[in-house]
């Protein structure tokens, strides 16, 4: 009895040692590039530091400057109006998320039948996603050219005068959103929706048919509820991406302009940290972003948990 217990204890110890060995490389990286940097950036958020001169502890100053406001000639003014403006830009650009999800769903519905050439269509729809990045941003900068670009040429054909897309504070954000929709609507989300549609039990439609449901009723009572897990997954991932997005396209196409109209929070963090070397302030913005993402995701889970049909 005694020997057996010692043996099993030995075995357990061996297994633990082996487990730590398996974990070691990953854990080291996790420590060095994720968990310790998270703590470091929290500390950094309470400092003023330009990398070159010694670090200065400033308490809550960064957060007060970022989130606070003061009175100026009788009006309440934010201490950092740019932060709120860029936050507004970030939210504005995220309005494209539900539109894109709708388009992906429509595409998936159209593709979810026995049609010839479906692989051909899927390949074409995926091309923008697979090519996404700087090369496509360059292409779209040309497409949005006010005088000789593709879009304004097409608009001219139907007698409309297109705007100067990327140089107009009104149109710069819609321009980036249209490009984003074009890039992503036939990509990952469409494939996920298609997989979701193919996973729906055909018997459910038959049962609905027997109950006399028409197409529209079948969609709202069978398809839509059965797709809620997919919709929820796409929505959460897109929201998390949206809060942190907008840098690459704006950097290449507009430089964040005109007049800061395409600068997102991520771009503002980049500018603060790597253009102006305000490391402390940049870390504070990053933490505010983190807390915002955390709260929104939490709300999503709470609300989504009730709406999602499993």
């Amino acid at each position, binding site marked *: 009895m005694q020997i057996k217990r010692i043996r099993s204890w030995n075995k357990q110890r061996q297994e633990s040692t082996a487990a730590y060995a398996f974990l070691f490389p990953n854990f080291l990286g996790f420590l060095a590039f*994720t*968990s310790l940097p998270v703590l470091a950036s929290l500390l950094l958020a309470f400092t003023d530091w330009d990398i070159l001169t010694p670090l200065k502890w400033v308490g809550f100053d960064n957060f007060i400057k970022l989130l606070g406001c003061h009175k100026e000639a009788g009006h309440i003014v934010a201490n950092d109006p740019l932060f709120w403006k860029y936050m507004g830009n970030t939210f504005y650009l995220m309005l494209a998320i539900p539109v894109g999800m709708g388009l992906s769903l429509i595409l998936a519905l159209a593709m979810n039948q026995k049609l010839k050439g479906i692989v051909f269509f899927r390949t074409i729809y995926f091309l923008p996603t697979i090519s996404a*990045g*700087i090369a496509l941003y360059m292409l779209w900068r040309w497409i949005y050219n006010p005088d000789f670009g593709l879009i304004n040429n097409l608009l001219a054909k139907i007698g409309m005068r297109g705007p100067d897309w990327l140089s107009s504070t009104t149109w710069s954000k819609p321009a980036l959103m249209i490009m984003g929709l*074009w890039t992503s609507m036939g990509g990952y989300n469409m494939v996920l929706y298609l*997989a979701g549609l193919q996973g729906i039990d055909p018997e459910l439609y038959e049962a609905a048919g027997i109950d006399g449901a028409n197409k529209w009723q079948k969609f709202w009572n069978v398809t839509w509820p059965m797709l809620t897990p997919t919709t929820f997954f796409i929505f959460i991932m897109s929201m998390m991406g949206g809060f942190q997005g907008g840098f690459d396209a704006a950097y290449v196409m507009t430089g964040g302009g005109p007049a800061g109209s395409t600068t997102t929070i991520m771009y503002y*963090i980049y500018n603060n940290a790597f253009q102006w070397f305000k490391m402390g302030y940049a870390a504070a913005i990053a933490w505010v972003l983190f807390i915002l993402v955390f709260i929104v995701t939490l709300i999503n889970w709470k609300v989504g948990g009730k709406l999602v049909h499993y």
Partner: protein
Amino acid sequence: MTQAAIKSTKEAKTKSTMKKILSYILLSLFGVSMIVPFLWMVSTSLKEPGDVFTYPPKWVPAPIIWENYPKAWNAVPFARGYMNSIFVAVTVTFGQVFTSSLAAYAFARLSFPGRDKLFLGYLGTMMIPGAVTMIPVFILLRKLGWIDTYKALIIPSMFSAYGTFMLRQFFMSLPTDLEDAAKIDGCSLFGIYTKIILPLSKPALATLTIFTFMGSWMSFMWPLIVTNSMELKTLPVMLASFQGLYTTDWTLLMAGSIIILSPIIVVFILGQRYFVEGIKLGAIKG
């Protein structure tokens, strides 16, 4: 069959044909809108610089200027950029799949003190925006003297909580019979990992490989931050500097874009089946 039944099947048939035609129209409309910008890019890339600024635009360039391609290729060291991007993406992918699968095996199959707490810690960090860790990691690399080296491009990206999580979920779904048999035969844990777990997990490993490779290939902000010299730039960053040099030289810019895009498009068309399967798996398990 009664007259009415024949009529209703006939009706159903025409209805489904109608539906198919409508679907084809819708699918083609979307398809055309996806393809036209690419055709526009090709058309521009073959024009004489002056021919770009004509109204209405000519879709078929005359004359065709093939020289735009070698000109764009030589404008910045794109060959070097390709080598950098491939080297970085391959090492990052290999490192991530290796470290993630090792850790995932420990989380999925071995028991050790603190396992669940540690795993929760991993999960918790998956929601943290990259912006939070970016600044301290940059400062760390600067202290180590790694800025503007391959190390800065590769090493911080070799570890992934998401990859560990996804593989752990997949490993947990595998049956344990084979492992039990191997244990009785005296196989070591590392042997089980290499000879049983990895071969059984090919779909999950392929998914992680595809996503990590794509992520590294398209990554822009991090390489932009940690590299300065042209010899170290990966393709996206090099393309951005190329644009900086030839801001409105559209024929050259479009030729450069096509040079960068065409290999990816070819690889995608050849391997798209795996790609699509991979997306589904990544979402279900992840």
